[in-house]
């Protein structure tokens, strides 16, 4: 448990969290690994966790008939994915697939939500972190949407 707490504390997402909060969060986390090509979650599955990637890369994809799997983002070491557990309807909105052998920390969202409900200070601290990740990904999505690299037609 002590090592898991240390590993969790080393993740950028939890960096600088006070020890008491970190201990609470660790109670909801466990180590996971996925083989290359393995699906980590699929669109429309119940979303009850998020992942902090430690090694390897994960592709976030949407599949369209006739076009195949389209990757819109890849997630690597030090990055996180999965925020659908925070708000209803608590469903994954994409497929996540390991591109190679991937080690990650899975954090149980139900467990964390419960702790946040009981301790709003913890909740406030974590929601700020989730919000800043959301804003970052929103900025990146805008840039992607603008399709700035190609020749304009």
């Amino acid at each position: 448990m002590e090592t898991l707490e240390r590993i969790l504390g080393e993740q950028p997402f939890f960096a600088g969290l006070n020890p008491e909060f970190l201990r609470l969060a660790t109670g909801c986390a466990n180590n996971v690994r996925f083989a290359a090509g393995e699906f980590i979650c699929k669109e429309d599955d119940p979303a009850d966790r998020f992942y902090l990637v430690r090694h390897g890369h994960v592709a976030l994809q949407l599949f369209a008939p006739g076009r195949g799997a389209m990757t819109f983002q890849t997630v690597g070491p030090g990055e996180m994915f999965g925020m659908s557990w925070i708000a209803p309807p608590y469903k994954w909105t994409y497929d996540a697939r390991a591109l190679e052998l991937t080690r990650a920390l899975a954090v149980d969202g139900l467990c964390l939500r419960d702790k946040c409900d009981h301790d709003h200070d913890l909740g406030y601290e974590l929601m700020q972190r989730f919000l800043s990740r959301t804003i970052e990904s929103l900025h990146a999505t805008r840039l992607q949407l603008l399709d700035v690299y190609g020749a304009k037609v």
Partner: protein
Amino acid sequence: MAMSETASMGGVEDRTIPCVGRVSARRIESSDVVTLDVETPEGPVRYAPGQFNMLTAFGVGESAISISGDPASGRLTHTVRAVGPVSRALCNLRPGDAIGVRGPFGVGWPIGTAATRDLLFVAGGLGLAPLRPAIYAALAERSRYGKIAILYGARSPDSIIFRRELEGWRGRFDLHVEATVDHALDDWRGHVGVVTNLISQVEFDAEQATAFACGPEIMMRFVAQALVAREMRESDIHLSMERNMKCGYGQCGHCQFGPFFVCRDGPVFAYEAIRPLLALREI
């Protein structure tokens, strides 16, 4: 530096007159991007990484194209995207064809003053072309620099230019190379997402790092902001600007960017110098 070199390249004092070069090799980079090697009658050419030439497709017109080759080779290399009549004509040139060359023009990357520092090259799309001479120059004297990272963003895997070279650089132990695309199908094993995402994944000493970025203006703005968020100084971030150019030396007026002539005072500018202009619309 190169301003004074120019006259010798064309063999004439008049900077409006191109010299007649010959295309010696042509490589297809992607569906609309071609790299041309050009031989000029004067033999080896000298230019600073980041400078550009005005290239003429005879009978069609002239366009400002950055130099994308190895400055140590003494050869001219240009990478052109077919977007208009002139660039399309340039892309269609074949080995042996004549091509008009004026230049080199402008101020390049301050690579010489970045010795001992960490270097970050951040490129978007065709923006890798003007950065490549600087990368060659840094690799030619690899031991003079700290960590070197090349971060490259492209629209899709098939629009990546200099692919084989990027793969070669990626295999080196003394280089950190990451490429990301906006969209990919399942067969792409690399990153997907914007190039700014890669900045958080690179290790560098913000106090002792110099960044060189080139790509669409909007991408460079976000790159500069991401680098500043990593506590880099605005004076250590350099961007290469693009504007309409006709002459190359500040006399046709087209490339004005606030008080600057992009052709003469740039195309490479310190972010510190142009940050207020980048925030203005239609400047």
